[in-house]
């Protein structure tokens, strides 16, 4: 920097009009940042690898009756479209919540870890915008993870066992194209409770300021809810546990379509998501950004 003092006098202080970026711009900024982080690809990589492993193992062993505990398991070699359903059955329990919490739990706490929260909060954006962008980015990541995994499972399944009709939970047969729509609709429905998991992750990320604690805490909440669901005598609260909503999409794979689990999961998930987001927002607005 030796020539700084004599550097050509570019107009550093020319007046700039005050036009703050919109929340959408801040959201785009958050996505760009996510794309630069290894953790982002770790989660997505897991979402890709698991269905691939499943398809490869099924192809190698050809032990089709092994997956025959469910109606879709029995159809594994009859239609490739059974694979994404089986994967969603398997991944929805723990795997996808883990992937969602990897980013949601990190998204605010990582700024604390890097000391960059003070950097971004001294720019032209309000704290509310930053929080909204981070929450949206965490939800977006969950969407990408779910649909990426579903897409890989679908492509792998169809490539292995064909694009054929499937039999639904209710025993009716749907065409391959209709089944494809149902597969992705089921994944979309699964996102409802998964969003709530991500919101819990964002809250913990904001409150604990520690990425590891937030990720582990979010998964801990999921495990705790599973444990509560298994406690005898607590059957009454089971319909209101977030983990029970992970099966909300089953109603889509029946004829006629059973929307009740989906609508139920909407408001139950909101009971978890909305207070988490509000609490996280208030903590983020009021917190002192010290250290770093």
């Amino acid at each position: 920097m030796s020539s700084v003092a004599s550097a050509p006098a570019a107009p550093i202080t020319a007046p700039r009009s005050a036009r703050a970026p919109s929340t959408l711009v801040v959201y785009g900024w958050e996505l760009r940042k996510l794309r630069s982080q290894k953790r982002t690809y770790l989660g997505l990589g897991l979402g890709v690898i698991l269905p691939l492993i499943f398809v490869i193992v099924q192809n190698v062993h050809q032990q089709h009756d092994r997956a025959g505990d469910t109606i879709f398991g029995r159809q594994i070699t009859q239609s490739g479209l059974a694979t994404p359903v089986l994967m969603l059955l398997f991944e929805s329990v723990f795997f996808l919540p883990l992937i969602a919490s990897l980013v949601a739990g990190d998204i605010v706490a990582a700024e604390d870890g890097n000391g960059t929260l003070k950097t971004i909060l001294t720019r032209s954006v309000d704290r509310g915008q930053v929080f909204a962008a981070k929450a949206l980015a965490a939800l977006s990541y969950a969407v990408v993870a779910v649909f990426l995994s579903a897409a890989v499972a679908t492509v792998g399944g169809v490539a292995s066992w064909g694009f054929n009709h499937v039999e639904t939970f209710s025993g009716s047969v749907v065409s391959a194209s209709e089944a494809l729509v149902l597969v992705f609709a089921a994944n979309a429905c699964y996102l409802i409770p998964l969003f709530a998991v991500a919101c819990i992750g964002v809250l913990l990320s904001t409150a604990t300021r520690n990425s590891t604690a937030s990720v582990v805490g979010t998964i801990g909440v999921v495990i705790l809810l599973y444990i509560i669901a298994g406690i005898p005598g607590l059957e009454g609260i089971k319909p209101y546990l977030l983990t029970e909503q992970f099966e909300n999409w089953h109603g889509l794979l029946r004829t006629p379509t059973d929307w009740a689990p989906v609508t139920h999961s909407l408001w139950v998930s909101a009971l978890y998501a909305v207070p988490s987001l509000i609490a996280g927002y208030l903590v983020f607005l009021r917190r002192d950004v010290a250290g770093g």
Partner: protein
Amino acid sequence: MGDEAPPVKARGLVKRYKDVLAVDHIDLNVRTGDVYGFLGPNGAGKTTTLRMALGLIAPTEGTVELFGRDPMRSGARALEGVAGFVEAPRFYPYMTGRKNLELLAALDGDDAGKRVEEVLEIVELAPRGKHKVGGYSHGMRQRLGIAAALLRRPRLLILDEPATGLDPAGMRDMRALIRRLADEGITVLLSSHQLPEVQELCDRVAIVDRGKVVYEGALADLRRQGGASYRLRTTDDARAYEVARGQSGVGGASADEHGVSFQADEEHVGSLSLALASAGIGILALSPQLATLEDLFFRLTEQDGTDGPDVREGDRNGIANDLVNVLDQGAGVSR
């Protein structure tokens, strides 16, 4: 509001962490065009005050306004025309310097994104812009911090210890950059515990100690209040010392192997030099002492006694060492 309001105006600013009073009713008045030194030992409350000014932490009591806007009430709008950093500037280590600036420019809106290359050139980081910040040295990060601030075309630049951790050349360059920015009309609020830095750059200062402002005003006034100190070397220091002691308007005379030290205003310095000449004593060097600010600083920050915690003693030693370092570098003033 707006341009008429002072860049920084703090009134009764207090920050308390449980039982610790970090900032104790601080008032600050930074005027347009100031290079304002915010001086004090580590732990005196400088950084906490700057964090409150930037809206990063909420004051327990009092208000701070930037160009008439309170960051706690106006949010990001209060930071229009304001840029800087507190403590070390921080960036995303997994991204390049250029990418970091591009991201921050996105948060600034307007034309900030077009200025990334320009500000990298200004801080001479353009060749390293493609490298990840994780591999940057401390000095490079400090410069990147300045670059990030310049993206905003600030009217007020708040810098917290910008030269800390830099090598002598880096410190010199950082000061040159700050001086250039000030010359371009940017008001600078410079927090520092490095007396030479403040002495070289600032025209007005606030000295803070244990959370309280113990002096605020022009650096020149502070020096006048303290009385000017001089160091004298002559052909006969022993006799010169006797002459100085007997001269009216000259006080605090002392002699050692390096010469004679004394305090006097300019008029009496002239009288003394004539008296020395009359006594047949040749003057080899007569120079104002660089330690003046240090003396004043310690006078202001140590007058409450010496029962402070150990960390303050360490900080004082650090300040003294800073001064000694600069003296050893022969910073343009003879001893």
